Each structure stands twice: as C-alpha cells, then as structure tokens.
C-alpha cells in the first residue's frame, strides 16, 4: 500500500484498507446469508446497526486520540458516568431535553479531567488513563451506591427512536458526528495539527503548533462523543448498571486499529473505524446466527486483529523505523 494520502480526498474516497474492510463486510454478509436463512432480514440488519451505535461514537473519538498518538482506556467508564447523569435526570422525571444536554456535558467535563492529568500533567496517555480508569470506576460505584438505575422512563427513547425526513435519528446523529469530525480532521487547521502531533509531538511544537491546546481539545471531543453514546445507551436500555462500559474501551481500540488508524499516531481513517465497528458487529451477529456460541466472540475479535494487521504487515514489510518511536 502506498503512503496514505491525508489530504485532497473527499468524504467518500477510500484507501486500500477501507476497501478491504468493505469487501470483508460484504463477503461476511454474503456467507452468512447463505449459511442462515434468517440472516438477511430487515430485522437483523436493524439489530446489527442498533448494536453498533455506541461503539461507532466512541470509536470516532478514539480514532482522533490514536491519530494524535494518545489513547484512553478509561473511555467506557466515562460513558458510564455520563449515563448516570442522564439516568438521574430521567429518573427524577426531568425533561428529556435536559438529559440530551447532560451526556455531552458530563463527557466534556470528564474529558477535561483526563486531559488535565494526561496533557497538563505530561503523563503517558496509556498509563494515565489506566490510573483514571480506577478512579472513574470508583466514582461509578460511589454514585450508584450499589443500586442500578433501572426502569427509567422512556421519554428519551421516544425522542431518539423517531425519524426525521424518514431517516432514523440515531443514523442522523452518527452521520452528523462523522461529518463534523471528518471536516475538523481534513478541512481545518485542527486536523493538520492533530496529525502533526501524532507524527511527532516535538516537531509539532517546533512548528509553532499549540500542542497542549490541540491535545486537550481532542480529549474533550472524545469525551463529548462518548457522552452522546451514553445518551443512546440510556435511551435504549433505560438502565444503568455498575458494570456499564467495562469492555467498551478495548472494543473501540480494536475496531479503530482494524480500521487502519496507526496506534503510533499520525495516520488515521474515520471511514476505516466505521467499517471496523461494522465488521466486528457483523461477525459477532452472524456467527451467533449460524450457531457459534457467544463465548467464541472475543476469539474472533483477536484473530481478526492479528489476521488483518499481520496480513498487511507481511504484504508490505514496513520499515523498522516504526520501532524507534515511543507509544502514546
């Protein structure tokens, strides 16, 4: 694969990885359709898409973080904390419109906290967010006091499960979020700065880029997207349990990596993330439909990561210089 063009590409132009993921998705769909008579139904398609919403939103934020050479392993629990805020408002029969604002707001606030530790404190992102993961988990337990928020009113769901001009609201929200993130990444100075920082923070600083500001902002953006994910979570499940979001961070990282975003930063693919999430969900859904027990699902995820990235590594022996750079 040739060097990835970062610029000049339109919203819908695709690189090699994105094509292969798309082909993989279609191939999987084709195989499952043949293998199971119940696969290719509208109901099942809706199920797969519905199950992808939260991961898509968190994945978009994670794409930005990885592109910047950062990472956030606490992001799932951030979703949990935002969900608690939303749930509390709904539980107190608050307006669903207030609840709509609460998620992104709490997400942004926690993004600030994470950024304060990782960016201002100059702590490596992976370790810093690992520490915060513990702190946030305790916060979830302390806030819930061991009780779940359950049986929440469906007012938020009534708001989000509708259609606007025939398009379901979740699809609309994701499309808008994607477009905004894409524009920010490819059409504003912020995106250039983000990718330059991902390539080398030191060089970016020398180029006069406000490194601290950009990094801080990225954690906040990721927090906001996660807050939106929390809104969908609460709207659909109408329940906030203590284990909420415990697997989201690793799932999101897996999907983003599959999508072709470099974990060393400097290179990212938003479309790849979307296709990565869909491929994971399509496989999980399809394998269960053809009778593979759900316990095998993590194995599939792992094999997919090693398989896709390993295949790519073999097919274009990357230069060794990539070893000389430190991680997040």
């Amino acid at each position, binding site marked *: 694969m040739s060097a990835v063009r970062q610029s000049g590409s339109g919203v819908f132009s695709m690189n090699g990885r994105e094509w292969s993921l798309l082909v993989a998705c279609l191939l999987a769909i084709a195989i499952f359709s043949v293998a199971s008579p119940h696969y290719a139904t509208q109901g099942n398609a809706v199920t797969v898409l519905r199950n992808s919403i939260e991961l898509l939103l968190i994945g978009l934020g994670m794409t930005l973080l990885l592109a910047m050479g950062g990472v956030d392993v606490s992001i799932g629990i951030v979703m949990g904390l935002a969900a608690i805020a939303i749930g509390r408002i709904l539980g107190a029969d608050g307006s669903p419109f207030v609840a709509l604002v609460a998620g992104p707001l709490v997400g942004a606030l926690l993004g600030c906290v994470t950024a304060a530790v990782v960016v201002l404190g100059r*702590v490596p992102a992976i370790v810093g967010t690992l520490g915060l993961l513990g702190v*946030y*988990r305790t916060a979830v337990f302390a806030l819930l006091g061991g009780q779940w928020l359950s049986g929440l009113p469906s007012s938020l769901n009534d708001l989000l499960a509708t259609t606007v001009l025939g398009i379901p609201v979740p699809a609309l929200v994701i499309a808008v979020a994607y477009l905004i993130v894409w524009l920010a990444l490819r059409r504003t100075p912020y995106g250039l700065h983000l990718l330059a920082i991902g390539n080398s923070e030191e060089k970016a600083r020398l180029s006069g880029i406000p490194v601290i500001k950009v990094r801080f902002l990225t954690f906040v953006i990721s927090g906001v997207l996660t807050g939106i994910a929390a809104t969908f979570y609460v709207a659909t499940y109408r329940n906030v349990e203590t284990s909420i979001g415990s697997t989201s961070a690793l799932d999101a990282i897996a999907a983003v990596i599959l999508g072709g975003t470099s*974990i060393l930063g400097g290179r990212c693919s938003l479309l790849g993330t979307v296709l990565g999430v869909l491929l994971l969900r399509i496989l999980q859904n399809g394998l269960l439909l053809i009778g593979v027990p759900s316990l*095998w699902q993590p194995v599939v995820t792992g094999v997919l990561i090693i398989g896709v990235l390993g295949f790519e590594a073999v097919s274009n022996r990357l230069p060794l210089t990539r070893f000389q750079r*430190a991680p997040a």
Partner: protein
Amino acid sequence: MRTLRNLQGPALTLALLCALWLIVIVGLLALKPSVFNLGTVTTILQFSTILALVGLGQGMVILAGGTGIDLSVGGAVSLSAIIALLSLKLGLPPVLLPAVCILTGAMLGALNGLLVNGLALLPFIATLGTFFVYSGVALAVTGGAAQSGVPGWLLVWGRGVVAGIPVPFLTLAIPCFALAGLALMATAWGRWIYAMGFNERSARLVGIPVDRVRFILYALSGALAGAAGLVSLAWLGSGRPNIGQNLELESLTAAMLGGIAITGGRGGVGGVFAAVLLLVTLKTGLLQLNINTVWQVGIVGALLVFVLLADRLSQRWRS
C-alpha cells in the same frame, strides 16, 4: 524535601513506594494493631505470588522498549492452566503438570514474540489480539466450567507455608525476582535490555541482537504467566478459565508503579516487587479495616496517577 529533590526516576519511585508502604503499615498499626501477626504476612504474600510473577514478565517486556507491552498475560495465565489440566485428562502423566503449564505459557509468549518480531506488529496490537484469543479460548473450550484433576501432591506445594511464607512465593516468586534482578544488573543480557530499551537504534548499531532478546523476553513473560497459572492450580486445587482476569491491567499498574518507564530503558525489577507488595498490602489493609472494596480500585488508580505526576515533577525540578 531537599533530599527528595535529588532523587530521580527509579530511586524516587522506590523511595515513594517505601514511604507509602510505611504510611499504610503505620496507619494500620495505629488503627488496628491486631492485624500484625504472621498470618497477615502469609496472607499478603499468598495473594502477591501470582501478581508478582506476572508483573515481573510485564516489567521486563516494557523495560526492553520498542513500545513493548504484554496485554495478553492474563489470558496466558488462564489458558496455560486450562491446557495443562486438559492435557492431564488426555493421559499426560501428572508429574509433568508443572512443566507443561510453564511450557505452554512460554509458547503463548513466544507467539507474541513471533508476531512482534516476525510480522513487525506493534506489541500493543499483537498482544491485544492475543489477549482476546487466549482469554477467549480458555473460556470457550471449557464453556466456563472449572477444571478439576489437580494432583494432591501439587496442593501440598501450593498451600504449604514455611515460617509464615507461602511455599510458592518462597520457591518460585523470590527466585524468579532474584534471578531477573541479577541478570539485569550483572549480565551482558541485562545491559542489552537496558540499552535497547533506552535507544533501540544505537543498540542495533552496536550489534545487540535486539530481535532475539525481545523474542526471549516475550517468551519469558509467557513462561512466568504459565508459572502463575501453575500457582493458581496448586493453590486453588482447580483450573479456572478466567483466573487471569484483570491481570493485564494489574500487572501494568504494578510495573508502572514500580518505576518502569513505559518507553523502556528505565526502572528495575526491585521496584516491581515493591509495587506488588504495596498493592497487596494496601488491599489487605483496607480489607482489614472493612473499607468498601470500591475504594481500592480508585485508590490504586489515584496512586498510579500520583506516582507518575511525582516522577514528572521531579524531572521538572531538575531541569
């Protein structure tokens, strides 16, 4: 403060850890003197053994740099214990159980090394993949059911206590740390690990077999995970397909808390050892005081952030 200011890196971390450890001990002593007996020491060491072994492997892998990390350790612990017990059922003589357990772990680790070296996958990605695979396979092949069949003589070893010290800790954890510490300090291999962790390009230029060292370290981390799996078998008396749950994060915490730089080349196994003991002592102390376990998670997380920030601050003071 002035002396603290002169400390840096591993020495600072070690000093901080010891200070924190003392605080925990003194706090406990003041609030609950009855805690202090040999039984508590035994308990602490008993629950340190598995984390110590896994943390050692994790620490060595990170130390060697090259963005090294082993996220698959927890899965390797579970899977090696399960595979060892399953092969017993397939007719393996029980005498070989320990060897099979450690060997399986080593092979799982070697697979990581192969992915990192041979395929040039980033360690984070390669071991994230094997994390999903190892822990998933352990659960899927057993359907989640615990596996019985641990021979009785292994339990004698696993549950034995000599002079208040659990036998597995005495015969496995301590020798492993001693050997690793000695190897890092006194052998060419140890110097190589630091050299490649500090600057891999120059390490390659001076002819250090970076790839071979890295491969062996991943295999070693796997073997230590296998040893941890063995300890779990010998102690619990059964093979649990999720015994290694959360160990990837806990061992990473121990290594970071122990002063090993995430970028490699800085830190030592002594710090990891101290960090493991601190973590378990802290847990024990909080449990003895009947403080809700939810606080442990947060306190350990806050501690990690605190130590990292302290390390950063000390660097700023010096510059």
